[in-house]
């Protein structure tokens, strides 16, 4: 499933809404998650999963082609952990 198909499914279930409003709803959900993580916050969606930010320490990397050492700075990366309900559903344990 891709973004446009997700929008389509929700539009079909909500025929009273304009397509552009459905697009705005879906975009808002994803944008809010990204913006929260950009502020260093967690987004916890019980049953679905949690988005958080992990900090990777600075390290000395190596250019694989030249073998030259390069300083790699500390870096924040996004992380997703699947929620229990979704994990159980994936493995056939419906509630």
């Amino acid at each position, binding site marked *: 499933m891709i973004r446009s198909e997700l929008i389509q499914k929700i539009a079909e279930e909500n025929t009273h809404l304009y397509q552009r409003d459905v697009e705005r709803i879906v975009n808002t959900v994803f944008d809010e998650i990204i*913006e929260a*993580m950009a502020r260093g916050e967690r987004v916890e969606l019980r049953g679905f999963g949690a988005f958080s930010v992990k900090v990777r320490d600075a390290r000395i990397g190596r250019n694989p082609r030249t073998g030259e050492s390069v300083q790699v700075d500390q870096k924040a990366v996004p992380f997703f952990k699947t929620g229990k309900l979704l994990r159980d559903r994936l*493995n056939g344990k419906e509630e």
Partner: protein
Amino acid sequence: MSDKTLTRMDLSEAVFRNVGLSRNESATLVESVLQHISDSLVQGETVKISSFGTFSVRDKGPRVGRNPKTGEEVPISPRRVISFRPSHIMKDRVARGNAG
């Protein structure tokens, strides 16, 4: 790093502000977004949200685990897990937002 945690309520509030639906309907729609993603993954589909990231389902084979407290061996049965690969846009935004 901030200790603040957003929940469904914050996402619903954002939809309420941006789209002008009732709070109730905003909450229902946020839930619907999450539900459709979950259903699609449970069907074994990959969910690719452009400029956000890709959720995919991976099959893990059986393996022998160990109870870390007792050292006892326990069989771990095959299972399906989700892996999330953030888009470059998300990675850049998160890296820049949390820099220095």
